[in-house]
Structures are given as structure tokens and as C-alpha cells.
């Protein structure tokens, strides 16, 4: 049984981010792959899991989530091999520093050599990123400008929207997939959902046809036109 842990949906889950766990669990279930989804709320401790999901949130909750994770076993579990999908505020929290409430710099968890400052304007709208030849589609809504240091790879190149800085979106490390696309990103991008599911379970997964394929084709067509 693979455990997927949704971290603080009561703080980070503003933009339908709960849909990512739903898509992972359902795509696993249909293939007979055992997946257990657990939600960790504000007063819970962080359990052992193969994959942690972090969503987007507002400034105050984002700061609190960073503090709670700093005081938990989360960082050591990721360093020991657990994987993370981090969206929006989650992407910022895993870096070295991020900005909240104006330009106040706040310490991140340091799991990636990444710094987020306050962008000149808010990035709101559809986001499409080219990831290893495949299009990743979603919607972004954030005020950050994220810079990658020390050879950290981006997740992909922005085709539409802003992402980190107008050119690149998110980042990819051995244990982290990070993107500014909510959407939620795994529900809208079946291939990305399966890539993560495969990466976490170590299984080679057969294709799985569903209506999400039609949605993905439609959004890809709209966003790349």
C-alpha cells in the first residue's frame, strides 16, 4: 500500500488542490494499485508517506504551514526518500526564502535551492508549460517571482502565462515536482498524474482512458493556440 499524504488542506488548499489527491487515488484504484490517502490537518503530526502533497494558500496560512512543517518530521522524511508534489505556495515553502505580507522575507524549508520574491504584479490566468515535450496545463494565481539557483532544474518552459518568471515554471529535483499550475494540475494532466504515480510506486503503469483525456486535449488546444 502506497501512502499519499495531503498536508494541511485547511491552510493550503485554496484552489481545488484537493483534486490532486483525488486524481492520484482514482487513477491508482482503477489499475488495482493500492493507494491510501491521509489528510494532515493543523493539529496532526506528519505521518510516514511515499508522497506528500502541498497546495496553495494565502499569506498567513502559508507562513503557518511553513512553521508547522519546520517543526515536524517532514524535512527529514523527504531527505530520506519521500517525494513531494508542491503547488504554488507549497512550491515557495520548500525553497530557501519566500515573501509574505508585503516584502517581508520568510524562511523556507530549504529542500530546494530556490528563492521567491514578490513579483511586480500578480500572475493570474491560464498557465501552460512544456515539460519534456509534453504540455502541462493549468491555472495560476500568485504574487511570487521564483528564481532557481545552484543548477536546480525547472519543471519546464512556459508556453502561456507566467510561472516562475515568465520563462520557466516550477522546479524538479530528485524528490520534488513543483509547479505554479493549480487547476488542479493532476486532474487536468493525466500523463503528469501517471508520471508521479509511477515515480512513487515504482510501477510501470498501463495507459488508462478516461474523460480527463478529452479535457486535456481541449485545454492543450486552447492554450497552445
Amino acid at each position, binding site marked *: 500500500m502506497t501512502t499519499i499524504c495531503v498536508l494541511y488542506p485547511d491552510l493550503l488548499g*485554496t484552489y481545488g488542490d484537493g483534486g490532486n489527491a483525488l486524481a492520484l487515488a482514482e487513477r491508482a484504484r482503477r489499475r488495482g494499485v493500492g493507494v491510501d490517502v491521509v489528510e494532515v490537518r493543523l493539529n496532526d503530526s506528519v505521518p510516514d508517506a511515499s508522497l506528500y502533497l502541498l497546495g496553495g494558500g494565502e499569506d498567513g496560512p502559508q507562513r503557518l504551514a511553513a512553521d508547522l512543517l519546520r517543526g515536524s518530521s517532514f524535512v527529514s522524511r523527504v531527505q530520506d526518500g519521500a517525494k513531494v508534489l508542491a503547488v504554488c505556495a507549497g512550491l515557495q515553502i520548500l525553497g530557501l526564502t519566500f515573501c509574505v505580507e508585503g516584502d517581508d522575507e520568510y524562511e523556507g524549508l530549504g529542500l530546494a535551492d530556490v528563492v521567491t520574491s514578490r513579483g511586480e504584479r500578480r500572475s493570474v490566468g491560464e498557465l501552460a508549460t512544456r515539460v519534456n515535450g509534453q504540455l502541462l496545463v493549468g491555472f495560476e494565481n500568485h504574487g511570487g517571482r521564483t528564481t532557481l539557483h545552484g543548477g536546480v532544474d525547472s519543471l519546464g518552459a512556459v508556453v502561456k502565462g507566467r510561472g516562475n518568471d515568465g520563462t520557466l515554471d516550477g522546479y524538479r529535483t530528485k524528490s520534488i515536482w513543483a509547479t505554479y499550475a493549480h487547476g488542479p494540475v493532476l486532474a487536468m494532466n493525466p500523463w503528469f498524474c501517471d508520471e508521479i504515480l509511477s515515480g512513487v510506486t515504482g510501477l510501470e503503469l498501463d495507459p488508462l482512458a478516461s474523460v480527463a483525456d478529452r479535457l486535456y486535449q481541449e485545454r492543450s488546444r486552447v492554450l497552445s493556440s
Partner: protein
Amino acid sequence: MKIAPDLVASLARGRTVILVSGTNGKTTTTSMIVAGWGGAVTTNETGANMPAGHAAALVESKSDHVALEVDEAWIPDSLVSTRPRVVVLLNLSRDQMDRANEVRHLAERWRKALEAHDDDDLVVVANANDPLVVYAAESRANTVWADVPTSWLADALSCPKCTLAISHVGSAWHCTCGFAKPAEVTTILGDELIIDGVSVDLELSMPGEFNRSNAAMALTALHGIDVDLEEAARRVNAIHSVVGRFSIRRWKGHVLRLLLAKNPSGFAAMMATLPEDQSDVWVAVNARLADGHDPSWLYDAPFELLRGHRVYCLGDRRLDLATRLDYGQVDFVVIDDDSTLPTSKGTVPLLANYTAFSDWLARSEP
């Protein structure tokens, strides 16, 4: 419309104004205030709830009694321009995040505007079960607190004052920082409605627990300007639909009940009203400007409530809806061509978000 604030101020001067705001229930509650007040009431019934719409409504009708619904973001301006006798604050939850961005930020703006407002006679009628509303209204000395059922708490799990966890036990709630549900509630809605110690006969013609809450807020506002409660309740009870909402409509041989739901809390509330004996449900979702361009809220709404129904997916974003339902293990059919919709027995509930609702209201007949 830059000149609107001054224009609204001059048009509103000397009139008795009630403002209504909140994420859900603005239009219905405003309609209830209009009906309950009785006689001619100036109002923005079509939902044009920003200064231009307010100015148009105030020009169109000369009645001294004014009930206006106000877009959440415009409350600070409207307080200053209309100088209301009563402001009704219903609830705050995630809605059209691509435009409004952050719901806690709205609560902060309401709070600052109410703190700064210099009219001590202003009566704020506020929902004591919504922590974000309480945060906005708690600084006023004469806030009237209403204890009305409020099911959507997903945006108030973290304290608006200190961000720690709010504990909700039954209808009570509190945070360790001391922020808590106000003790001095004077409107209480349970099986019966009590306003200021008086039992009010509430027998609505419209469905839904949320409409009972809206009516309780409307009647509390009217009580605040000394309208007779018994008379007002009788008139509110007689309302059957509000600008097409909850109305029975006909379209190509189908009989539909039109239900408007614009955001997760609205869908949650509306899905709870669906008849269990009707299998077919039509749901229409768009993501145009007035809806918000971002349909990610579909994953914040508990569509699992539709398990056991067959859902026909309509609207511009029917594939987003269908994908949401599919992941939620709800039986669905994507309708690319309306002529393929099967005729159902009896009345089919049609849930639609804002522009989809307008489309269906326009294409159907009474």
C-alpha cells in the same frame, strides 16, 4: 465609472438604505428585504451590485426605502457613499479567486471599513457562525449577531486573527487566541426563528436551509428599522422564486427547476436540496468573465453528493465538470449537443453557475 461614488452619495442622501453583502445569498436576501418591507422599495434586482448599478437603481425608483446588494469588494465604498441604516453581512467563502484573490483579505477590508465608519447609528447585522464575518464586524459596538446555520467552514478553519486552528464544536467555535463566536446573539434560527426574544413564523415557499438563513438575516435587518416582524415574515414566506432562481421552467418538452450555484459553498448548499427520487440532474458550468475564468473550484465542491444520480454535463466547461465527476465516482454523461438530452420523468433539477444560469433562464419559458 469614476463619478459613481459621488453620484450614489447624492442619490442616496435622505433615504433609508439597507445594504446586503456576502459571497452567497445577496440577491435572495435583498429580495426578501424588499418583499418584507412592503410597498415600493428601490433595489438593484438584476444583481448589478457595484456603484454604477446602485446609481441606476437609485435613479430609476424614487422610493425612500432602499435595499441594495453590494459586491463584497465594494462594501468599503458603499458604506461611505450610501450611509446605510443597516448593513447585512451574510458569509464569506472562496469565490472567483481569479478576480477577488483572497477571501481573508476581503474580511480585512470589511473590518477596516467598519472600524473607520463614523456613523454610530449604523446597525451591522452579522452572521455569528462565520468566523470571517465575525472578524469583520466585531469592532462595532452595536452589531446584531445572528446565529443562523452555516454549513461551509472550509475557509474559516484557520483563525483570521492569528492563523491557528479554530475548533468547531456543534455550532460553537473558538480559537486558542480568544477569538470566538459572539455570545450575545439576538437572532437564533433553529427549528423556529427567534428575533429579539420573539418567535417569528417562518414557512418559506422556497427550498433549502440556506434560504431560511437568508430570511432570518433579512427579517433581522427589517426589525432593525422597526418593520413589523409578523407582517414582514408573511410577505417573505410568499416568495416563490428570485430572479428565476428556484423557478420551474419549460424547455423543449423538459420541465426544469433552475438552481443557481456559483461557488463551492453554493454548490454544496444546492446539492443538499436535490430530491432523492429524481435520478437525472443537469449541471451547467461556464468559466466566462462573470463566473471567474478559473474552474478549479470544481474540486472544492463536494460533488460526491451526486452519487446515485446520473449527471448530464452541460456548459462551456462540461469536460472540466465531467472529469471532476469521474474522479469523484459519479455517473455522468457529457452533452455536446443539447438535442441528445433524454426526457426525464417529472421535474429535472438544473444546477448552473452564473452565466450558464442566465443562458438557461433566457432559453427556457415559464
